[in-house]
């Protein structure tokens, strides 16, 4: 047995044919242990980590991240006995895929008669039967296996050449074998203009749904299916024809990024972060009675403090922004008003007040809104807080925020100012009792020491859960946050 073993992509979920390599967790030359996660693969069903089948050293990675790989193709080679010294010259990759432990039919016995699933042999669209367009009808739990069936040759039956067979397209192979009736694929119907005048259009519900989604008018199609019914292929062909005359960019203007169909509407599936955001927002908005208060504050002194901090040696190599001071203001104000940092626990009939502050920062990422939090932020020094905030946002933007960073938040800040707006009425993350929106800082005419001066001014918006926080407490809290931002050094001296 060869020292080098190739691991082939397994069928990860009952009948899948391919997977996309999301990320390699190891590189060539790495020493790995048995069952160590080596690669993340996404299939039609799930994104999963694959653990190493053997311990050893990675000698080759066959497909980079981002490539789609067929089930059964080698993805990584592992030297399973690296301590045995350098590889002998005659020990290349094994001839048979090592991951396949089933009986390997010999080339002769496997005369690889490929049989295309003959359309029409089974009622198209029946569960488990072949469906037009190479799809397999799926109920639940079993993936679309659309491979061509391999049959062993009967003794004495003339067969196609074994070497040529695997590369032969299914249609040609089945044509070469008289025993199997070759059913010609239905020709895609031309997108006919005349709307048929008589009778309802025959089409199965999933095809109707597809047509609706793609903006195709079924009545305008001549069906190629049984009894003249419109098939999935007909709809796809018509949709392709619709999309073909793409509007040229006018006067060098970039075309609109959204792809609109004939109805001039775009349908975006509600899923992922968007779906979770929606669920959380609805749950929060209709569970916690929200109150929002606003405060406009002169933050000129804060901005000056920030400048001084930037030039101080302790903060030389860390990026700091007004968000840092807002975070500090919130942490100090929570110390003075701990009830703001609490949870309404309906099942136990309790309000859970927390001594620790897991400070959430709303971050807009490519995947959507996420709110990772800095754990126990109240215990951090200002520099540690600055580093934690920077790290949080960077990780969020890269889309790699671990679930633990997104759970357990106790108070959140949303920095809508970066988008150039003054403030908003934020919605509470579920389980939290208050959230602060922090608007843009603008030079504004302001009464300062009895005179109108141009000062740096911002508006804060605080939403709180009125079940726990009354107007008085919410106002005092917001007032304290504002007071710190108006005069951070003075507030610090007064409060500590």
């Amino acid at each position: 047995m060869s020292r080098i073993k190739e691991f082939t992509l397994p069928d990860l979920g009952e009948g899948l044919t391919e997977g996309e390599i999301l990320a390699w967790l190891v590189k060539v030359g790495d020493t790995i242990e048995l069952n160590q996660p080596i690669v993340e693969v996404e299939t039609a069903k799930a994104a999963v980590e694959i653990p190493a089948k053997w311990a050893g050293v990675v000698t080759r990675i066959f497909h980079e991240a981002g490539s789609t790989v067929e089930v059964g193709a080698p993805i990584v080679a592992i030297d399973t006995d690296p301590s045995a010294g350098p590889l002998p010259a005659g020990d290349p990759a094994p001839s048979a895929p090592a991951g396949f432990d089933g009986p390997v039919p010999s080339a002769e016995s496997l005369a690889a008669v490929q049989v295309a699933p003959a359309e029409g042999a089974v009622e198209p669209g029946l569960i488990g039967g072949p469906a037009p367009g190479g799809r397999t009808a799926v109920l639940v739990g079993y993936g679309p296996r659309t491979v061509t069936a391999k049959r062993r040759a009967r003794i004495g039956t003339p067969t196609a050449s074994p070497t040529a067979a695997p590369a032969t397209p299914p249609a040609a192979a089945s044509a070469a074998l008289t025993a199997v009736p070759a059913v010609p694929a239905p020709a895609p119907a031309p997108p006919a203009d005349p709307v048929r005048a008589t009778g309802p259009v025959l089409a199965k519900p999933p095809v109707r749904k597809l047509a609706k989604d793609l903006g195709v008018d079924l009545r305008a199609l001549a069906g190629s299916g049984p009894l003249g019914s419109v098939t999935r292929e007909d709809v796809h062909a018509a949709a392709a024809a619709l999309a073909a005359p793409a509007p040229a960019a006018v006067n060098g203007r970039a075309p609109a990024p959204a792809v609109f169909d004939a109805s001039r509407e775009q349908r975006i599936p509600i899923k992922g972060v968007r779906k979770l955001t929606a669920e959380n927002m609805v749950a929060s908005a209709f569970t916690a009675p929200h109150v929002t208060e606003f405060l406009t504050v002169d933050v000129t002194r804060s901005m000056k403090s920030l400048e001084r901090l930037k030039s101080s040696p302790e903060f030389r190599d860390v990026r700091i922004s007004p968000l840092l001071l807002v975070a500090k203001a919130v942490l100090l104000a929570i110390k003075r008003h701990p009830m703001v940092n609490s949870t309404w626990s309906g099942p136990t009939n309790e309000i859970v007040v927390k001594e620790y502050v897991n400070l959430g920062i709303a971050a807009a990422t490519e995947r959507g809104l996420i709110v990772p939090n800095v754990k126990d932020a109240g215990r951090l020094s200002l520099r540690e807080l600055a580093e934690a905030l920077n790290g949080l946002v960077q990780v969020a933007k890269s889309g790699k925020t671990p679930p633990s960073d997104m759970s357990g938040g106790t108070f959140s800040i949303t920095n809508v100012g970066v988008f150039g707006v003054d403030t908003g009425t934020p919605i509470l993350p579920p389980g939290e009792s208050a959230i602060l929106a922090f608007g843009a800082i603008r030079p504004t005419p302001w009464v300062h020491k009895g005179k109108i001066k141009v000062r740096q001014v911002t508006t804060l918006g605080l939403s709180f859960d009125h079940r726990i926080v009354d107007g008085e407490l919410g106002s005092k809290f917001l007032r304290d946050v504002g007071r710190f931002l108006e005069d951070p050094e003075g507030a610090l001296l007064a409060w500590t």
Partner: protein
Amino acid sequence: MANDESQPGADAPAGGFVQLLTPDGERVDSVTTAEGVTYSVDFTDDEYRGLYRDLVTVRRLDTEATALQRQGELGIWASLLGQEAAQVGSGRALRPQDMAFPTYREHGVLYTRGIDPIMPFGLFRGVDQGGWDPNEFKFNLYTIVIGSQTLHATGYAMGVTMDGKTGGPDGEAVIAYFGDGATSQGEVNEAFVWSGVFNAPIVFFCQNNQYAISEPLERQTRIPLHRRADGYGFPGVRIDGNDVLATYAVTRAALDNARHGQGPTLIEAYTYRMGAHTSSDDPTRYRIASEVESWKAKDPISRLKAFLTKQQLADDTFFTEVDESARTLALDLRERVLAMPDPQPVTLFDNVYPTGSPEVDAQRRQFAEYQASFEGSAH
């Protein structure tokens, strides 16, 4: 978001549950329910350690099985991750004469019945039917169809009564396992009806892991599942399914009631499936991360470990030895799974009738000839 979980039952769902070991590893002496039933356990030090060993072992074997599936060596795997306490606690509560009817996820119960853990792997690898002798181990075959085993169990339990094997401490009892999703099935409700009116010696053990594949509990029921028993006329108890002690205490009491002829009990073990329904689905598409995180804090193994440590019943040497022996078992399991032979097509005809039949023999011959008609035929 319960934070003060050192309080007994602080992590309980509305309406409470029976808990004898908190997530922090604090022992609760006894719990008395609203119906006035008191539950407790009295284990020796060795028994506590034995339960810990069981929990760690079944989790480690399950982890190996998940890895084998990801490596293409099993077609599918239904992981028990998170439900170890519900399975080990109820499995250890069985007496030797009791009969268990599992679903396809009861690898932990199977282990406590003394069955070689390799036994179900033929099924998941697709090389045989994964059979063992249900009579020898008093553990029925895995049932894939959701809920149907509750009727088999009910029929078996009615048979126990007809055979006159109930009515004393040596009586027989039956336990039927199923999940929260199965409670929506007709079979399970029929089983409740029949068991109730025939006073069958059966314990319905529902592992409420909160999801029927992707469907959350609130889409299955308007009331807590254990309260369904009211409508069928027998007691229903909810337990902390992540607490091996409460699971043992309540299951043992319910089985003993059954064997004494007191009829059925429904136990709802409130727990959480930490992994996917099976290796073929992606739980991140239907559960939020913070929910999973909150259940990590209720892990069945870490709470028993905390208890053993605090009570000085075990030290690092013990914990390391348990991990090491579980690992050895898992690696042995891996070797044996990889060595499982592929089935010969002709074995299709085996085990059709216990004593064979001329028709099946003829079909076997015919099929063997057909197989031999292929080129390069090895079998």
